[in-house]
C-alpha cells in the first residue's frame, strides 16, 4: 500500500456543547477518490473545512502531503504551501466568485500567488486551465453575474486547480447543478484526475454521484463514521442499517416510498 496523501486521525470538533465531528479517521491515497457520504448534520462539511484550515479541530491530526496541518500555519510561506497541497470547491456557485472579478483575473491571481510565471506564461496557463474545465474565451472575460451556475462552478474548479494541488476537496460541488450540467462537470473532474493524478475528496449526499466518481466511501452519521469500504461494496452490499436506509431512500426504477414512517424526532 502506498503512503496516504491525506491522513485524518481521531478528528474531533465541538461547537460549545454540541459535537459536530467525533473521532473521525480516514486516509486518501495519491490519485485516489474518496467520498464522505452523509446527510445534513452528519459533520461531513465540518471535516472538509477542518482539512482546508477554515475550522480548527478540537483534537485530532490532519496530515496532507506529509505535512501536519492540525495547527494554524506559522508563516505566510507555510500558508501558501498548504494552499498548493489541498484546494476546495464549495457548494454554492453563486457566492464562490468575487462578483467584481472575471474568471481570468481570479485564476491569474492564484497563479501569481503560487507560481513564478511571468504575465505571458500566466495568460497561457489560464487558457490551459480554462480549456481543461471547458470554459471559452468569452466566459473567461465575463463577470460572474453573466455566467450560469455550471459555468461558475467550472471557474471555481479551474481556480482551485491553478494552485496545482495534490488534493481537491469537492464539498457538494455538483449538487446544485442541473442534471445535464452536472454530467458535464463530473466528466471534467474525471478527465482532470486522469491527466493530473490529483486525488479527490468528495463530500456528498448523492449516492449516485458517489458511485460515479469515488473509489472508496466512508458513511458519516451524527459526527461519526458508521461504515467504510470500496464504493461498489458499500453501495451494493451495505452492512450498517443507516447505510441501508440511505440506499433504500434513493428513488430509482421500481422504487416506492416504503410506508409512512411516524417521525420520532424529538425536536
Amino acid at each position, binding site marked *: 500500500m502506498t503512503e496516504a496523501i491525506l491522513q485524518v486521525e481521531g478528528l474531533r470538533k465541538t461547537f460549545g456543547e454540541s459535537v459536530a465531528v467525533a473521532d473521525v479517521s480516514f486516509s486518501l491515497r495519491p490519485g485516489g477518490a474518496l467520498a464522505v457520504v452523509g*446527510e*445534513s448534520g452528519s459533520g461531513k462539511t465540518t471535516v472538509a473545512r477542518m482539512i482546508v484550515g477554515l475550522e480548527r479541530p478540537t483534537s485530532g491530526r490532519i496530515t496532507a502531503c506529509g505535512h501536519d496541518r492540525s495547527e494554524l500555519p506559522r508563516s505566510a510561506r507555510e500558508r501558501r504551501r498548504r494552499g498548493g497541497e489541498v484546494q476546495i470547491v464549495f457548494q454554492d456557485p453563486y457566492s464562490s466568485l468575487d462578483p467584481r472579478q472575471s474568471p481570468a483575473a481570479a485564476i491569474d491571481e492564484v497563479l501569481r500567488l503560487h507560481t513564478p510565471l511571468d504575465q505571458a506564461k500566466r495568460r497561457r496557463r489560464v487558457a490551459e486551465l480554462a480549456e481543461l474545465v471547458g470554459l471559452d474565451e468569452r466566459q473567461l472575460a465575463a463577470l460572474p453575474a453573466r455566467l*450560469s*451556475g*455550471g*459555468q461558475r462552478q467550472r471557474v471555481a474548479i479551474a481556480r482551485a486547480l491553478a494552485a496545482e494541488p495534490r488534493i481537491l476537496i469537492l464539498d457538494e460541488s455538483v449538487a446544485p447543478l*442541473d*442534471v*445535464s*450540467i*452536472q*454530467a*458535464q462537470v*463530473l*466528466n471534467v473532474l*474525471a478527465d482532470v484526475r486522469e491527466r493530473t493524478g490529483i486525488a479527490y475528496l468528495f463530500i456528498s*449526499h448523492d*449516492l*449516485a*454521484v458517489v*458511485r*460515479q466518481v469515488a473509489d472508496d466511501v466512508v458513511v458519516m452519521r451524527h459526527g461519526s463514521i458508521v461504515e467504510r469500504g470500496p*464504493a*461498489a461494496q458499500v*453501495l451494493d452490499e451495505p452492512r450498517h442499517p443507516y447505510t441501508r*436506509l*440511505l*440506499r*433504500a*431512500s*434513493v*428513488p*430509482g*426504477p421500481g*422504487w*416506492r*416510498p*416504503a*410506508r*409512512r*414512517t*411516524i*417521525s*420520532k*424526532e424529538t*425536536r
Partner: protein
Amino acid sequence: MTGVLDLNGLTVRLPGPDRPVLDDVSLSIAEGEALGLVGESGSGKSMTVRAIVRLLPAGAQVEGVVRVGGVEVGSLRGAALRELRAVVPVVFQDPRAHINPVRTIGDFLTEGLRTHRRLSRRSAEDRAVRLLDEVGVADGQRRLRQYPHELSGGLLQRVMIAAALLAEPRLLLADEPTTALDVTTQAEVMAAVDELRRERGLAMLFITHDLELAAAVCDRTAVMYAGRVMEVRASASLHEHPLHPYTAALAAARPSLERRADRLATIPGRPLSAFEAPDGCAFADRCAHIRERCREERPALRPLGDGQVACVRAEGLQVVFRD
C-alpha cells in the same frame, strides 16, 4: 375531457423579453392522478404552477385556458380567486418562507378553520391533530404549541402538507417539496404524500428536477424544456423507453446508483430558458439527432404510443433509444 386540471395552450409572457416564458403548454390531470412535471432550470415548470393559481409576477400576460375542476381560472377575481387558492393548495420547496415564524403551528393550522369554517378552537385543533397524524407527525397536541423554528425541515414540510389538506382539496400542487430535504427524509415525506393521495383520491401535480423521483411517485410524467412540453406519458414507459431525445439524454446524463459509467452521456451546452429558445424545436441546438427541419418548424405535441411527444423524429428514434 374534463379532468381535475386542464391546461390548454397556456402561454405566459413576462414584461421585457418578447418571447414567452411558457409556450403553448397543454396538460391534463384526471381525478386522483399524479402527474410529474420534470425539467431543468428555466424549463418553466414552476411558472406553470404559478400560472395555475395565478401567482404570476406583475405585468405577466396569460393566454390559453386553465381549468380547475372544469372552472376556468383566468376570469376569477377577489374572493373567487382566494377560494381557488384554498382548494388548489401549493406546497413549496422552502416551507420556512411560507409560514409566519412568530405564530405557532397550531395558529397556522387552525386559523382558516376557525375564521372561514367557524369551527370552535377545540374542534379545529382536533382536526389539525388528526391531519398531522395522517402526514406522519405524531404527538400533534404538542406540535400545535410549537413554533416553526423548533421543527426540522422535514417536519415542517409535513405541516405544510397537512395545511394543504385542510380544505379537502381534490388537487395538490407540489413545487419541489422535498428538494431541500435529506434523502431519508424525502423518502418519508414522499411516502406520506403517496399514501394520503391514494386514500383520498387526491390528484397531484408534482414538480421536480428528478426524473427518477417523478417516475417513482407519479402515474404519468411530463418533461418540459424551455417553456414547452416535450413529452408526456406513463411514468414507467417514459423512464424506460423515452421517445423524445431530450428525455433520453436527461435520463442518460444522470449517474446510476447501480453501476459506474465509463463516462456520463452529456448534453452539450446548457439548458435554455424559453425566451432564449430558437425558432423550430427548442432543443435543436443540443440534440444529437437533429435534422434540417428541426430548425425550421416547431414540432407540435402529438399522440404517439401511450402518450404524446413533440419531436418529428420520435418514431424513428424509438428504436435507437431502446438499445
